[in-house]
């Protein structure tokens, strides 16, 4: 987010001025202010702010309803509730609505600014993760293949749309942390057989045995990659769930619900697809 633009909604002009002064004192740009429903809709539509600070108790419409209403106009904004009322029920409701922060009045400048900064950082970290993680996964994958089989790997990035069918064997591992996600490897039976053989020295036609091998390999790749990411000190706190192996005819790994990043690894045993996705855990 470049230079976030702020909108303040509060039925008290006094509160609006106070919040505005605090934001401006910290170099933030306030582009819109509203003390009633009509102005709120008008200003929001005109300015499309990145951040909205929202009072809870207002005469025509409450703050939660207002956020819902604004989202029907545009969903691409962050929201912070600012109210004299704060209890478990209200914070729960605020979480349910995926409102990014909740501050109790009287507003303290450092609390307001820290809340905004942490929301901005969260966003920044997420986009950095999307930008940077593929390089880390490639490195872990190549290292694992190299140290286990003494062979090298080259990579090619692919659009998720180009990879419609699975090649026959897929292993998925859930990623848990600040940005929950999932990791999968996908390959043909022939690739898996050759890969397994290069390590065990034996050809195996037993799907279960190969499933054990590929589970452990996937676990090493994603474990090493997530350890490296955790070391970058961005509060990712990644942990892994156990692997699930899928095999069968006309297998497809769905990429419908989440943007999936795909890398094709060309190994001596055949192509292996590395898929990764991360969601915002808010």
């Amino acid at each position: 987010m470049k230079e976030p633009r702020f909108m303040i909604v509060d039925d008290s002009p006094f509160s609006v001025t106070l919040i505005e002064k605090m934001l401006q004192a910290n170099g933030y740009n306030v582009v819109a202010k509203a003390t009633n429903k009509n102005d709120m809709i008008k200003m929001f539509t005109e300015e499309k702010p990145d951040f909205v600070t929202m009072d809870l108790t207002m005469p025509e419409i409450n703050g939660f309803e207002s956020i819902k209403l604004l989202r029907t106009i545009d969903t691409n904004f962050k929201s912070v509730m600012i109210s004299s009322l704060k209890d478990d029920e209200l914070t729960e409701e605020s979480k349910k609505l995926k409102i990014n922060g909740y501050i109790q009045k009287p507003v303290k400048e450092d609390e307001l600014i820290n809340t905004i900064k942490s929301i901005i950082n969260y966003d920044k970290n997420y986009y950095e993760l999307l930008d940077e993680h593929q390089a880390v996964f490639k490195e872990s994958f190549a290292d694992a293949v190299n140290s286990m089989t003494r062979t090298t790997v080259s990579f090619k990035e692919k659009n998720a749309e180009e990879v419609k069918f699975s090649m026959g064997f897929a292993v998925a591992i859930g990623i848990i942390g600040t940005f929950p996600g999932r990791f999968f490897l996908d390959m043909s039976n022939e690739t898996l057989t050759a890969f397994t053989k290069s390590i065990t020295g034996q050809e195996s036609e037993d799907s279960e045995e190969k499933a054990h091998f590929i589970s452990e390999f996937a676990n090493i790749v994603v474990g090493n990659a997530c350890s490296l990411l955790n070391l970058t000190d961005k509060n990712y706190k990644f942990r892994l769930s156990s692997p699930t192996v899928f095999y069968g005819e006309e297998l497809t790994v769905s990429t419908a619900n989440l943007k999936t990043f795909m890398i094709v690894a060309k190994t001596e045993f055949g192509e292996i697809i590395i898929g990764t996705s991360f969601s915002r855990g808010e």
Partner: protein
Amino acid sequence: MDVSNVNPFLQACTLVLPQLGFSSVKKVNLTVSSKVNAQGVAVSVGIIGDIKGTVVYNFSEDNAKKIASKMMMGMEVAVFDDMAQSAISELTNMLTANASIEFSKIGKNINISTPTLVTGKELGIKVSSNKVLVVEMEADGVAFFVNIGIDGDA
């Protein structure tokens, strides 16, 4: 093998499915198996925390389409396309998230991963636990399976 791990999933089904428009939700059968029941559509969700493992939700493609249709306000689902896949993924996410809240009520704190949805013929599925609790559920006559594999269960 701790059968009490099933209850949070049952509670999640009875809570979430009516919100999506199903009027009757019931458990039909509970078995212990050494492998995951596998048919057309499978979604795996990872769990870690006080217990660790994998839940695999399993549907025939027809039943997955019926459930997706209900979730999309009765819109006809002729093919199990991206929209329908997304609906089923979201369903499993809601069910597992709700189960995690139920687990926290009995003092077990868990976190869940995002779902991985797979379709295929003759699906084979292998999770890391040796034993899997297979719960057959029925929502308005539409059957689906919740396979709960907790690591360490033998």
